[in-house]
């Protein structure tokens, strides 16, 4: 069974959907000859030509504006914003236009636009190229927000996103793209993973970890360590789509374990996990044996220096320690 990388899974999803539907096309900066800053679209120009692999000037707001306008009139664009930090340049287009058009128009229009972007740190790219800004999008009704943590999910979720009639923010993680460690069997055919359906990445009895994107991988590492070193059996829940959010899967797990840690790479204060914690409290309060712990990025911009960056982003060590502390409280 072939194994492919996260990046290859994403590329394959786009290739297959472009073969299926001529309305699907890509637009973004340096996606043609260059193949995208991370190489995701390498080779696609050759197959699909430059009308459908559409290099743009550095104009993020117009990239999204054009995506919206073409989606509204029958195309199914996949817009690439090179780094998720630059989504902010197109924020009005995303928040005030893409997300709201359908509602403002009384349901009489649709905007089937996928915005792919690379989020997260760990690459030494510092404050303006490393952010995890998903919380800015999950709060906006009208958007869907997807953050795959592995190749299998990436392909199935991207296909669903392309088929979805709503604007979807699809946030990829730079550290997942090419790392062979995360290669996985991914079916060659087209398949979908429904948006709004989480996944148990590891079953366990003792404690629930809710994590997103790259932090799912890190959580799995910690889970293995905790199991072998401490005999603690963690369940790792990956919501996969942050909006709509599969609270059921989280709540079931919490009811089973009674203990939860929420792990995200984004800055702690005001992060997405606040929503998860709040809903757990609202829906499973009586099952909780202890407060819900959040482990997240430090409350600062992502620093450049390796030592600082490693301190800023939740590390295996920090997650492990946080969990042991929490378990100590029980």
């Amino acid at each position, binding site marked *: 069974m072939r194994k492919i990388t996260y990046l290859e899974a994403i590329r394959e999803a786009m290739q297959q959907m472009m073969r299926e539907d001529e309305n699907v*096309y890509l637009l973004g900066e340096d996606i043609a000859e260059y193949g995208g800053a991370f190489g995701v679209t390498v080779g696609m120009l050759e197959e699909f030509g430059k*009308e*459908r692999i559409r290099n*743009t*000037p550095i*104009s993020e*707001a*117009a990239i*999204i*504006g*054009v*995506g*919206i*306008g*073409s*989606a*509204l*009139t*029958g*195309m199914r*664009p996949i817009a690439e914003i090179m780094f998720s930090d630059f989504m902010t340049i197109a924020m*009005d*287009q995303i928040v*005030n*236009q893409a997300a709201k*058009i*359908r*509602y*403002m*128009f*009384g*349901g*009489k*229009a*649709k905007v*089937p636009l996928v915005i792919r972007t690379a989020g997260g740190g760990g690459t030494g790219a510092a404050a303006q190229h490393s952010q995890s800004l998903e919380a800015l999008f999950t709060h906006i*009704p*009208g958007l*869907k927000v997807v953050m795959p943590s592995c190749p299998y999910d990436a392909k199935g979720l991207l296909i669903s996103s392309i088929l*979805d*009639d*709503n604007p979807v923010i699809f946030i990829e993680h730079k550290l997942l793209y090419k790392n062979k460690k995360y290669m996985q069997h991914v079916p060659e055919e087209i398949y979908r993973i429904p948006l709004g359906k989480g996944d148990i990445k590891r079953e366990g009895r003792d404690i629930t970890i809710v994590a997103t994107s790259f932090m799912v991988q890190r959580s799995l590492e910690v889970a293995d360590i905790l199991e072998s070193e401490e005999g603690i059996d963690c369940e790792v829940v990956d919501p996969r789509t942050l909006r709509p959010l599969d609270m059921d899967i989280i709540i079931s797990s919490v009811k089973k374990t009674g203990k939860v840690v929420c792990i995200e790479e984004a800055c702690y204060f005001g992060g997405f996990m606040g929503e998860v914690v709040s809903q757990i409290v609202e829906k499973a309060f009586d099952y909780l044996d202890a407060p819900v712990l959040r482990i997240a990025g430090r409350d600062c911009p992502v620093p450049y220096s390796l030592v600082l960056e490693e301190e800023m982003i939740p590390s295996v060590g920090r997650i492990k320690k946080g969990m042991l502390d929490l378990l100590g409280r029980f």
Partner: protein
Amino acid sequence: MREVINMRKIKVSDYEIEDRFSGVSKALKLEMLKKMYEIRYFEEQAEQLIIRGKIHGTCHLYVGEEATAVGAIYALNKDDYITSTHRGHGHCIAKGADLKLMMAEFLGKKTGYCKGKGGSMHIADVEQGNLGANGVVGGGIGIATGAALTCKMKKNGKVVICFFGDGAVNQGIFHESVNMASIWRLPVIYLCENNQYGMSMPVKEAFNIERLSDRRIAYGIDGLTIDGNNIVEVFNVVSHFVERCRKGLGPVLIESLTYRWKGHSKSDAQVYRTREEVKAWMQKDPIERYKRVLLGEGIITPDDDRKLRAEVENEISEALKFAEESPFPEPSEVEEDVYA
């Protein structure tokens, strides 16, 4: 598409433009006048509703600018696209909107174009090619550009008119979008309605150039400034460029000089301009001017005109009646229509 061979040429700015208007049917010429009245009366009705406190919200009246919307949109085919602005009633009506559904929307009724969810600033009729008004200044410019990309990619021969005010010309999205349309030669007409002010900001203070259409040079596209109160000129110039767009010759930037008679929105003391200035522009009423053309050409008589106006007044009353009698949405509908 209309026949262009042997057509008289007129000179507008640096361009030789075909006088397509002279070849337009009487019926269509009359329809254009009617649309102008519809806009004028709709807006006057809207103003009354605002004054009488019947509207929860605000609106931006298009009175005085009718020639631009009607002249430009009548240069399009029915299935071409437009994007509109916060001051969008005029474009909407010219694009063939149902006055009943517009009025109902303005009153926040369930029967309105947007089921009461959008209101004055968001009326859209995507089916008919109206991609919507927009509450964000410049908000429609990227969208129009994207619609033009669809037209190009689907090779459907359609053209987009993107309406926006002088104020929007200083928004970043204008710059990015027009450049993109230029390098991709998209079939879109960027139509700037220069009504002399962006809210209280005079164009003279917001720009350091005389003619906003000169910005075309920055993108290497065609462009010119026209008399936006002269519907014949608007129609001819826009028709000319619509045809060029359909041929794949790329976008154009047209500045249409006009004036808004009313305050910017509900609450505007208009301290930034003089009564004299307003009066002077009211002398240049685009409707009166067009009427003189039609009277001159013998297309209408004063009596026809009176009848036409009565007819339109009646339509507006009907629309209002429809709107007033329509139900409000149910509170339970509030979370519907967020997602497809």
